[in-house]
C-alpha cells in the first residue's frame, strides 16, 4: 500500500482575488458554487466571510470527482501517489505535482506540468490550459 499524500489537508479562507464565477467553496460547511453575479456579490459581501467562506486544499476526493483514478505501481517511490485520466498521469509528492501526457514524444510519456496546485479551482483551470478537459 503506497502512502497517499493527497488526503484531506484542511481548508483556508480565500483571498478576495481568488473569487470568480464558476468556483466552488464551502459556505458554513455547505459546498456551493458561485453560479452568477448575485452569488458572487453575496460571497464578497458576506459579513462573516473570514469565518464561513472556505476553500479546501486539493485532495484525493477532488481528483476522483474530476474523473482521475488512483493507481499503484511497484515502480513508484514511497510517498508518491499516482493518478490516471485518459492519456494523462498525475503524480503528487509532498507539495509538488507532475502531470505527464502519454505518447507525447515517440511512445514516451512527458511532463506537461510541474508545479504547485493549491485547490480544486486551480486544478480545473489548469486542466483547461493543458487541454486535458
Amino acid at each position, binding site marked *: 500500500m503506497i502512502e497517499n499524500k493527497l488526503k484531506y489537508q484542511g481548508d483556508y479562507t480565500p483571498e478576495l*482575488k481568488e473569487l470568480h*464565477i464558476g468556483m466552488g467553496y464551502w459556505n458554513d460547511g455547505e459546498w456551493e458554487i458561485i453560479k452568477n453575479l448575485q452569488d*458572487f456579490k453575496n460571497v464578497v459581501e458576506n459579513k462573516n466571510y473570514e469565518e464561513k467562506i472556505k476553500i479546501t486544499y486539493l485532495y484525493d476526493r477532488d481528483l476522483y470527482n474530476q474523473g482521475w483514478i488512483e493507481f499503484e505501481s511497484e515502480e513508484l517511490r514511497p510517498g508518491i501517489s499516482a493518478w490516471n485520466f485518459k492519456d494523462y498521469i498525475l503524480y503528487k509528492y509532498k507539495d509538488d505535482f507532475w502531470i505527464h501526457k502519454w505518447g507525447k514524444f515517440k511512445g514516451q510519456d*512527458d511532463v506537461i506540468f510541474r508545479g*504547485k496546485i493549491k485547490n480544486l479551482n486551480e486544478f480545473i483551470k489548469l486542466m483547461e490550459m493543458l487541454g486535458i478537459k
Partner: protein
Amino acid sequence: MTENKYYTPEISEFHIGFRYEAKNNETFEWEKVIQISGFAGSEHYDRDLINLANDQFRVKCLDKQDIEELGWEYVGESNYYKGDIRYRIKNKGNTWLWLNVARQGDYQILISSFDTGFSLEGDSFLFDGDIKNYNELKKLMLMLEIEKI
C-alpha cells in the same frame, strides 16, 4: 502570436486583480482597467453585466509586451523549434527558464528548464499548454514558482 489581438472575456474570468480593457461610454476609447473590487472593478453588478453582454469589455491576448512585463527577456527565434519565439528568465536558484511561443496557433506555450525545451531526461518541462492572456501567465508563474531574480 499577434500583437494587439483581443477577445471578449467570459464572465468567469473576472477576479480581483484581473487586467482588461473597458470602453469609455463618452469617448468610446478603450481604457485599461485592473479590477480592484466586486465584478469588473465596481459595485454596479447589473450595469457591468450589460456591458459585458454588449462587448464593452475586452482582454488582450498574450503577447510579447505582456511576457516581457512579467520579467521574461526576449531572446528571438529558436534554433531547435524553427519559428518558435523564445524568452528566458533567471529564476530563483540562479537557473534559467525558457518560454517558447509556438509558431502555430495563438496560445501554445512551452516553459522549460532546458534551452531547447527538450532533454533526453524528459523532465525539463514545467508547462506545455495554452495561456490566453497576461492574467493567466501571471497566475501560472506562481504555480510554477517562477520568480525573476
